[in-house]
């Protein structure tokens, strides 16, 4: 028999039993649609995370910590590594490599390093117009900040100590939807800090009421020079200012408790330094070099394999849930094929009497089963795509009320589309194996006598 005849036979036989074909195929459509949806969701999340990391260049960064740092990287911290107990905060051991200004100069000379900046963040109250938000401010020099993608405006120059870059998401929280409107507008940054100066302590002891706590609030005026599309360098800050401006401010650092006690203007070691590399390929050699110099390092790149395993587990879970529907649908196919074979029992006898081999008979019914799978896969893909589009729109509509940027939660790469159809056909063929083998084994003498 020719392939075209198998296809013709399958289509013709399915057309004869339209309702049954429709119902059986519907089961496959729903199962494949659900499986597609779930798999596309897993892919979408994976793509969003990976793309976001790539856009933020996060894989190109290495965080560096001093060996005795009070905050060693979690994944690398080993109490038995011979590095000694964590040093007391603020203490400096001359034998331990420090993260200081000299290090910042040295690290830039390592091959593959593009830039380095200290991890300095502090909480602050930001006021724009009549609205205020409590945010984290990141200290970033002009040269490091310059390649940052901006929605509006520009990066501050090194001779603009009062320049500030604000994130688009913070702007939305401050009620501004057009980033361009904000450029050049004045903005206030207020810090809270402990004030342990003798004058304050004197007032604490000898005055009463609101003077009892050693809290100081400082307000500094800045001008917005640019609006960042997204926040790179870990995305932890909502605003960026220059080191000179930060140095003038008394502030409560979230990266080191030493700022509590350090008098304003005194230089200090950095709790950590972020090193930006030219390419992902530079991560391993630069890490090796820094560790050889006695520093601890941490890179997101190291976590990539674990992330992949995490995504794989998530995909497996979603597929397992989706497979319940596929199993039910395949039982429907088995039932339909058994019914079809019983109904056409005599016809099978005729086929054999006129020269059909067992293989011909089996293939005729397998093509029928496969055709159900093909239809189910195609329409299931369309259903899955349509449902995911609706869910995507609904979720985005809800998230937009919370000022979240639009995201595509589902991803339908070409291999998923083709794979869904192929999988549907495969499942249908497997479901059809037993009934079609039964058809192939029909005794023509018995079948020809059958009414």
């Amino acid at each position, binding site marked *: 028999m020719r392939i075209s005849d198998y296809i013709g*036979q399958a289509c013709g036989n399915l057309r004869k039993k339209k309702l049954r074909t429709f119902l059986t195929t519907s089961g496959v459509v729903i199962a494949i649609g659900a499986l597609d949806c779930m798999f596309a969701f897993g892919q979408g999340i994976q793509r969003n995370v990976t793309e976001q990391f790539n856009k933020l260049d996060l894989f190109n960064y290495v965080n560096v910590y001093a060996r005795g740092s009070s905050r060693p990287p979690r994944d690398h911290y080993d109490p038995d590594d011979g590095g000694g107990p964590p040093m007391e905060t603020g203490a400096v051991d001359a034998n331990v490599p420090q993260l200081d200004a000299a290090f910042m100069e040295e690290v830039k000379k390592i091959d593959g390093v593009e830039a380095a900046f200290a991890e300095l963040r502090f909480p602050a109250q930001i006021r724009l117009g009549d609205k205020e938000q409590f945010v984290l401010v990141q200290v970033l020099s002009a040269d490091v900040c310059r390649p940052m993608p901006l929605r509006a405006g520009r990066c501050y120059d090194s001779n603009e100590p009062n320049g500030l870059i604000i994130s688009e998401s913070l702007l939305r929280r401050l009620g501004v939807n057009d980033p361009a409107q904000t450029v050049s507008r004045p903005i206030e940054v207020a810090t809270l800090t402990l004030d342990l100066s003798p004058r304050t302590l004197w007032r604490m002891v000898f005055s009463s009421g609101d003077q009892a706590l050693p809290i100081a609030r400082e307000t500094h005026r800045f001008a917005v020079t640019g609006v960042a599309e997204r926040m790179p360098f870990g995305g932890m800050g909502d605003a960026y200012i220059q080191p000179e401006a930060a140095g003038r401010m008394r502030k409560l650092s979230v990266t080191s408790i030493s700022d509590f006690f350090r008098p304003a203007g005194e230089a200090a070691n950095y709790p950590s330094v972020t090193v930006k590399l030219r390419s992902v390929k530079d991560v391993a050699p630069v890490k090796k070099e820094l560790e050889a110099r006695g520093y601890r390092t941490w890179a997101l790149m190291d976590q990539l394999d674990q992330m992949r395993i995490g995504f794989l587990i998530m995909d497996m879970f979603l597929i397992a849930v989706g497979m319940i529907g596929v199993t039910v649908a395949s039982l429907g196919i088995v039932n339909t094929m058994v019914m079809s074979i019983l109904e056409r029992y005599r016809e099978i006898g005729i086929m054999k009497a006129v*020269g059909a081999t067992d293989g011909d008979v089996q293939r005729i019914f397998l093509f029928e089963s496969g055709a159900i799978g093909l239809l189910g896969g195609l329409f299931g893909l369309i259903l899955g795509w349509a449902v995911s589009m609706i869910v995507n729109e609904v979720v985005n509509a809800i998230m937009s009320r919370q000022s979240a940027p639009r995201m595509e939660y589902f991803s339908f790469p070409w291999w998923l589309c083709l794979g869904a159809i192929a999988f549907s056909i495969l499942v249908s063929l497997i479901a059809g194996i037993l009934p079609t083998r039964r058809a192939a084994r029909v005794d023509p003498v018995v079948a020809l006598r059958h009414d």
Partner: protein
Amino acid sequence: MDADGFIETKDLTKAYVTGAVEVVALRGVTLSIARGRLVGITGASGSGKSTLMNLLGGLDTPSSGRIRVAGRLISDLSKKELALYRRNTIGMIFQSFNLVNAYTAVENVAFPLLFAGVARKDRLRRAAEFLHTVGLEPRKDHRPTELSGGEQQRVAIARALVNQPQILLADEPTGNLDSKTARQIVETLADLNRNRGLTVVMISHERDLLREFAHEMIRLQDGAVADREVLKPSL
């Protein structure tokens, strides 16, 4: 076996086991049919006529004994080889016509060509030619349910001929027909035997009708050949 026999059986036995009971349908049938003959097989119900026909047609396999057709030992063929034998060497006609009701007359006739790998267009053209041979071309687009018994049997004859077999096996082809139509069908088969040189083996209860056209008659009784009568000697 007879060296001249086109169809030969030797000690052919067929037994069916139904539960604990063994039913012997054929008991050591030995016969020989020459090429181009029209042979009538008669016998009472349960005498083993249809069993013999199924064995000759390759639809069934013997319990013991041998069948040789056109020099090939049919009783030793595999299932696939038997299917090819049915496709290429044998044409079968049944009492209940055995047409596919979902197909038109021409599609039914073309059905064997489907398994022979003939393209659809050629299948339908050839099927229409054979329907013309049996005088049914004008009814080619009708389904079996729209045809009379005689017409249905003609469609079945056309279907049996479409692969141009060497042997036509007819298992009570007149059983469901009135006497006039039965005569027409037997005449058609006799014409095919005469004009196309087809070897025809036909089972029928209508002994007298069969005697008019058959070259020889074989009577089966209790699964064995009871007697054999040559009506027209071969040339």
